[in-house]
């Protein structure tokens, strides 16, 4: 769609690097829904599980996945639903109607943030440069989600099955994020795909 511009739509790299140590990919226009509700209320959790097809992760820093939907635990009563691009309105409507009469909040924040995948041979060192959180595999297994700092901004960081990291970053900080990434990758080479 020509009337949509993702937070990182305008970034440019001087030249493409053949054997880049860091590879960045923006998962453009993914649907982001913020869901809040009482995890101890079975009616709430069961209704959500029914609509989404998967139970909400209740353990701190955990996640759940089904098809193209990924759910991040953000807080005891807060989750981020990442859904396929363009389906967020439908998912929101489905949840609203299923949860009618209950106390919950669902908020479309798809334009407020974006999902960026970071991969590459130098990923570990890049993460050590960028975040105070311990991203070592012994401490950050696949499927774990943490909300932490990334340089001087924040990020929600998720470990993918292939060992790469998905980062949710705020739209207004996207330019700063990319400036930092470009600078921190200087020694390794950065490719944007």
């Amino acid at each position: 769609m020509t009337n949509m511009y993702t937070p990182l739509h305008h970034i440019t790299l001087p030249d493409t690097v053949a054997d880049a140590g860091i590879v960045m990919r923006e998962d453009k226009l993914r649907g982001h829904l913020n869901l809040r509700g009482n995890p101890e209320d079975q009616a709430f959790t069961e209704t959500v599980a029914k609509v989404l097809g998967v139970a909400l992760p209740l353990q701190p820093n955990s996640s759940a996945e089904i098809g193209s939907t990924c759910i991040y635990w953000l807080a005891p009563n807060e989750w981020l639903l990442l859904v396929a691009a363009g389906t967020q309105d439908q998912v929101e409507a489905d949840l609203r109607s299923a949860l009618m009469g209950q106390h919950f909040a669902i908020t479309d924040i798809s334009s407020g943030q974006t999902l960026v995948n970071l991969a590459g041979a130098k990923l570990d060192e890049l993460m050590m440069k960028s975040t105070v959180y311990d991203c070592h595999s012994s401490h950050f297994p696949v499927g774990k989600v943490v909300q932490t700092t990334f340089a001087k901004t924040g990020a929600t960081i998720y470990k993918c099955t292939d060992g790469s990291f998905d980062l949710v970053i705020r739209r207004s900080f996207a330019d700063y994020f990319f400036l930092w990434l470009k600078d921190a990758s200087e020694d390794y080479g950065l490719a944007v795909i």
Partner: protein
Amino acid sequence: MTNRLDQCNRMAEGGRIDRSQPLTFTWNGKDYQGYQGDTLASAMLANGIKVVGRSFKYARPRGILGHGAEEANALMQLGEGKETIPNPRATQIELFAGLTAKATNGWPSVDFDLMHWLGKLGGKMMPVGFYYKTFMWPEKMWMTYEKFIRKAAGFGHASAHPDPDIYDKLNQHCDVMVVGAGPAGLAAALEAGRSGKRVIIADEQNEFGGSLLATKESINGQSAITWVEQVTAELAAMDNVQCLSRTCVFGYFDHNFLAALERRTDHQGMTATSGSRQRIHRIRAHKVVLATGAIERPLVFANNDLPGVMLSSSVATYINRYGVVPGNRCVVMTTNDSGYQTALDINGAGRTVVAIVDTRQQPSGRLFEAAQAAGITIKTGHAVIEARGSNQVSNALIAPIDASGENVTGETVTVSCDLIAVAGGWSPVVHLTCHTGSRPKWDETIAGFVPGDSDQDQYLAGAITGEYTTLGALQAGAKMGALVTASETSTSYACEDESVCPPQALYLVPHTKSVSRAPKQFVDFQNDVTAAGIALANREGFESIEHVKRYTALGFGTDQGKTGNINGMAITAKNLGKTIAETGTTIFRPAYTPVTFGALGGRDIGELLDPARHTAMHVWHQQHGAEFENVGQWKRPWYYPKGNETMQEAVNRECLAVRNSVGMLDASTLGKIDIQGPDAREFLNRVYTNAWSKLAPGKCRYGLMLKEDGMVFDDGVTACIDDNHFLMTTTSGGAAGVLSWLELWLQTEWPELEVYLTSVTDHWATCSFSGPNARNLLAKLCDDIDLSAEAFKFMDWRNATVAGVKARIFRISFTGELAFEVNVPANKGLYMWQQIMAAGEEFGITPYGTESMHVLRAEKGYIIVGQDTDGSLTPQDCGMDWIVAKNKDFSFLGQRSFSRPDTSREDRKHLVGLKPKDPTVVIPEGAQIVPHAEVTIPMPMLGHVTSSYWSACLGHGIALGTVKSGNHRMGETVYCPLADGRVLAAEICSPVFYDPQGERHHD
């Protein structure tokens, strides 16, 4: 390459240098040669260079004292021009081809120093405590003294150019952090590494081994170096172990957080050819093993600062590690066994040991016997009481002393020598333990301070505990390595006999003359603190060791008194008739050794210093020449100059466009909080001053938020989306603070309210257009709702389709004109902005920035929280009593404060309008407001100007300000005296300058 100097002190073989790789370097303008593996200090000593600088206060010639971080004298000005680095120690600079260094002081040269003669004068003029005495009286003379002192003394200079290098940081995490890679550290890391734990071991030297790099001892039947190489290779091969050489742990903080500086390319040249020159490792460790070793103490005797007086362990290190013997005829003075090994090493290198001068009356044991067997003269119960020489040692005065070490008991003999190696005992490197607040404890048996109790999960191994034998260090390291990994057993080691004869505690070598009459006996070389200076300080009443330190500058240098502190404390204790334990020690602070500012900054410099937040339309603003203003971290368009327009001209044009046709502002930065839940209304009732119970879906309302003290802290418009759903806006800068504030009340005070808050600031992009043509413009893009004034009233909002995009339109106004705010998901923000600009072309739509927004709202008397308010104004002070609902069921935040006498009094400062009497002037913002035109001192202050602008549509200056009792002074004249002598008169008036009836925005 020819050998320009013959490296007269270089041994034919031995040491860890590579003689096949000669390196040329320049010292004070002359070329010399050293080898790969040298430090600058070892290369200088190899070339027979004795004088490396002049002292701080007395400008006395100084030579290399030590071989590492403890070095007090050999501060270098390394490199030239923009690359120059001030004050690194020659002992820690690895030699590279083309290295250039000069002394940091000494003019015209270190060998012939004019300042020396001035220094002799300065020395008399600058007794201990000089700075304090001078600061006290006469105060006005300080500037004069200071110039003289700064010129005469001081060390290197920093480059005035931008640093050509970059620096970065890594955040590290580990189970076990081992600091120091000597025998104890290596043994600990080996144990921990083999257990599979995540281990980091760091050492400031270019290679691991610590004291083992300069020893002839054996471990497990092999040479110590072989053991070091094996262990280092094993550690390097472990995936779970990270080995950091050239990495100095310079700070140890709470919760086992450590900071280390890695010198990545300093050994290759002045600047890095790629990547960072230095890197800071920010290490978070579960357990920390400190194996930082010990530093040898010098002995305090007359003229002990002459070049040629060196630490005994340093002499041994230069011989064994660098193949350099720094003297031909050597006297070794020792209070313990360490000096004997050095004497044997000098002897083994083929140079003359004139004598071992042992202060102990009856030394014995393995090393004593070995020295005897080597035929070395040993003078027991003697001391070198004075060194003599002009620019370097040429003689040593040796005299018998008594067992107490306090008196010379016989005739003095003078021997000729060019090196005096001094072994005054060892000081454990307790510095890091001090960083976390632990105070070192005096240990009488080792005559040194050892680490005190610590709150950290910290383990100690080796010489830091006073365990000075290699075997003891290895075993302690292995034991700690096992302990931190909860292993039952640890590796055992075998070394040859290391039995020691007890040391003598001797901190001030006696002289035939009294301390005050003897030649200077230096305690702290870098700050020229003498035994006599400490005695003077003590006589003048300075008894606390912290006071003595500050009065004398003991331990103040870049070396933090690594060699001088213990002697100074012991001398103080003796002067005061106390024990050292009673006197105690000062404690060390980070950094252990100096750290480059560049490294501390890392990459958080330039445009990475502080994140700049951008709206979805930022690219458009850039393309259209906007100047930007910082609002919090946001970059907001400030104004859009056209051609050669000045800022004022651009702002006038933008304001008039809004008043006469239509202008558009990017309002995306306003904080936005989505509020959902059955108690959302009640929640709003409690956090805002006004009532929210009856706000219907489709309606908006302005709200004022107060802190508990009743003072205004944020404002904004909140829209009712439906009964259980509201959208709150906040100020741009206050968004995060407001969300935290609301969550705090929800989570801690009102958990019974069923409300959820979600930040949607970044999700919505807002195009706010204002002006008489605003409706005509919107009508071109939106045809699915009735835009008429009757159907879509002021303070209504509607869901609608604008330019084919689903949007929320708010009919609210911050300009006083007919205005609409079109909100769309930010992915479509840029598209929407472009569509509105294109549709507005026929009306001459003009983008305007925050400056015009400020003018337009000030013309209407709308406040900006944080500019017109400062946390000390109530709604009533702002003339906004109309927004305070007094009869809500549940009192809103801040309500109770209104009945306080101070908030209810009538003579508070009120926010009022100010109209300059001279219509052409704009009163500077911040100007003080006073009651009289005649300036008298003191003068009662009435308040100050908070906002002030030129109003293009009114044709005169306008201002808002706070004035005492301002609401009761309408029409009165007040005055603003300015720094340039002008006194501007202004009339107090209503803050609403434009369209007081509000007809335009209701249109």
